[in-house]
């Protein structure tokens, strides 16, 4: 591949001015010892280019102060070569190692010359992320570049070029919240015109449960593009891969699905596992409407009416709906008891537990195993019934209270009547018996 050849050439060029540093490591390093020190020494490249009027030449200096490379002591010459101590134009002498602007196809190797070098990176971070050129080569981006298609992403497209921030910096284009927007710079309808790849991924993702979790709720554990497609080895997951990808976080469902009969059937039919029912980029919070009968729900999309699969799914669906109904009844009864002034703490706790069980049922569905799902359903039905029972007890107690109240009122009224009679007798003058 051409990117491979370019790497060799690049490395050869890089090796020359780094002789002094070569004593520290046998592998070639790009920076001279002066620039590798943490203090920012005079950098003639910056001083001169800052003052130039042509925006093409002064532009790179604008944000370079915050660039992580500059902060760590790697100036312009670290990538471009040349002599930063020389204030004249002779600083840019190719014979003295000046490389100028790298070819697009060479960028990855250039960055890799340091970032793939574990010993070198450990100077800056005892736990470094070591870039893997091997991994990058598996990606569509690298493959396309090596075929000559330069309109695909390389390092600088995602990470920036002259103001690179570490990924954990919220202003970085590869900070988790910003990743999807960065990918969408190219992955949109206009840029991708003429290609066959779909272009709606970003808009789908932003409206998806993952997009909302990451962008609106700030849950950094929610996936952006790189969490499913890989960072530097971007590849659309294949049929089998989907379960592995989704299963990284949704481990329980993936585990259940792995052992289910549906998995093999889907593989045989070339259907992608999780995606077929849940979608991928635009995945929404699953609703219980997915478990509706016939073609209204997801099961009916494949299982023909009358087939054993359809009959099994109908039974499960009916029982699931029954459980939801029992929980809803429990809620109404508990609310009624509460309106009537009864305390329902215990009943509500049981009702909440029943709802927890519904979560278990929803997960167990992915086993597509009748027996397993039935067991979990039974647990849910038990707690739902417990909640209903408490509600009924509360309402029964309420009725008992009213009966007790009526009885005591009755007795009090009788006593009042008897006393009134005695009062009347007393007033009439007759003396009361002792």
């Amino acid at each position, binding site marked *: 591949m051409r990117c491979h050849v370019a790497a060799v050439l690049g490395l050869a060029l890089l090796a020359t001015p780094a002789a002094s540093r070569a004593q520290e490591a046998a592998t070639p390093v790009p920076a001279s010892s002066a620039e590798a020190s943490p203090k920012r020494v005079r950098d003639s490249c910056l001083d001169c280019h800052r003052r130039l009027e042509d925006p093409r030449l002064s532009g790179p200096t604008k944000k370079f102060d915050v660039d992580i490379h500059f902060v760590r002591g790697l100036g312009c010459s670290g990538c471009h070569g040349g002599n930063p101590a020389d204030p004249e134009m002779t600083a840019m002498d190719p014979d003295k190692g000046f490389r100028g602007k790298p070819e697009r196809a060479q960028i990855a190797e250039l960055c890799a010359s340091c970032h793939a070098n574990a010993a070198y990176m450990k100077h800056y971070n005892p736990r470094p992320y070591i870039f893997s050129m091997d991994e990058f080569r598996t990606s569509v981006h690298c493959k396309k570049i090596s075929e000559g298609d330069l309109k695909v992403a390389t390092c600088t497209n995602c990470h920036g070029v002259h103001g690179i921030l570490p990924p954990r910096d919220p202003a970085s284009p590869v900070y988790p919240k910003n990743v999807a927007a960065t990918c969408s710079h190219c992955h949109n309808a206009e840029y991708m015109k003429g290609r066959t790849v779909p272009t709606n991924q970003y808009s789908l993702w932003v409206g998806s449960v993952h997009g909302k979790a990451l962008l609106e709720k700030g*849950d950094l*554990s929610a996936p952006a593009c790189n969490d499913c497609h890989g960072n530097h080895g971007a590849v659309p997951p294949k049929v089998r891969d989907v379960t592995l990808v989704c299963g*990284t*976080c*949704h*481990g*329980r469902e993936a585990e259940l699905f792995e052992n289910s009969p549906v998995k093999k059937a889907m593989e045989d039919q070339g259907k992608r596992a999780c995606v077929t029912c849940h979608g991928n980029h635009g995945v929404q919070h699953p609703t219980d409407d997915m478990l509706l009968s016939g073609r209204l729900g997801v099961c009916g999309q494949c299982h023909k009416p009358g087939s054993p699969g359809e009959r099994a799914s109908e039974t499960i669906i009916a029982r699931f709906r029954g459980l939801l109904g029992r929980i809803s009844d429990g809620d109404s009864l508990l609310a009624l008891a509460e309106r009537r002034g009864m305390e329902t*703490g215990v009943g509500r*706790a049981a009702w909440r537990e029943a709802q*927890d069980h519904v*979560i*278990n049922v929803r*997960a167990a569905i992915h086993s597509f195993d009748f027996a397993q799902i039935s067991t979990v359903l039974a647990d849910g039905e038990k707690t739902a019934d417990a909640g209903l029972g408490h509600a009924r007890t509360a309402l029964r107690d309420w009725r008992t209270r009213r009966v007790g109240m009526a*009885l*005591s009122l009755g*007795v*009090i009224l*009788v*006593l009042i009547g*008897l*006393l009134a*009679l*005695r009062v009347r*007798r007393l007033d009439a003058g*007759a003396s*009361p*018996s002792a």
Partner: protein
Amino acid sequence: MKRREFLDWLTRIVGATVGAFVAYPVVRYLVPPPTPEAATRRVVAARKDEVAPGAFKIFPFGGRPGILIRSADGGYRALSAECTHLGCTVQYNGANKNIWCACHNGVYDLEGRNVSGPPPRPLERYDVHVMGDEVVVEKPVAK
């Protein structure tokens, strides 16, 4: 006379009945209820040998779920069972000796520290005391 005596006698009976209607709730009220106090800071999580070594139990504690874990050597520990990610109820994984949340694969160690997956904070820990044949869980008092 008979009527008057009857009415007087009836008045006494009904009066005593009203007295009983007043005294009965008061007497029942005075008798201590099964749980002696509200379970806000302290609750009986289980009976002594209800949870086998290596097993766990989810128990209600102040309206929220708690988890009681019995280790292989018979000792107990108790923590909040509400996952700090999105609130699912966690469970004990005896094989790996850690606490696992099935919703999004969050993992905590037995001290409650969030070690893997999405949970952003550790689980709150509680004190456990075995009193007689009751395993009592209590919210720790700030020292």
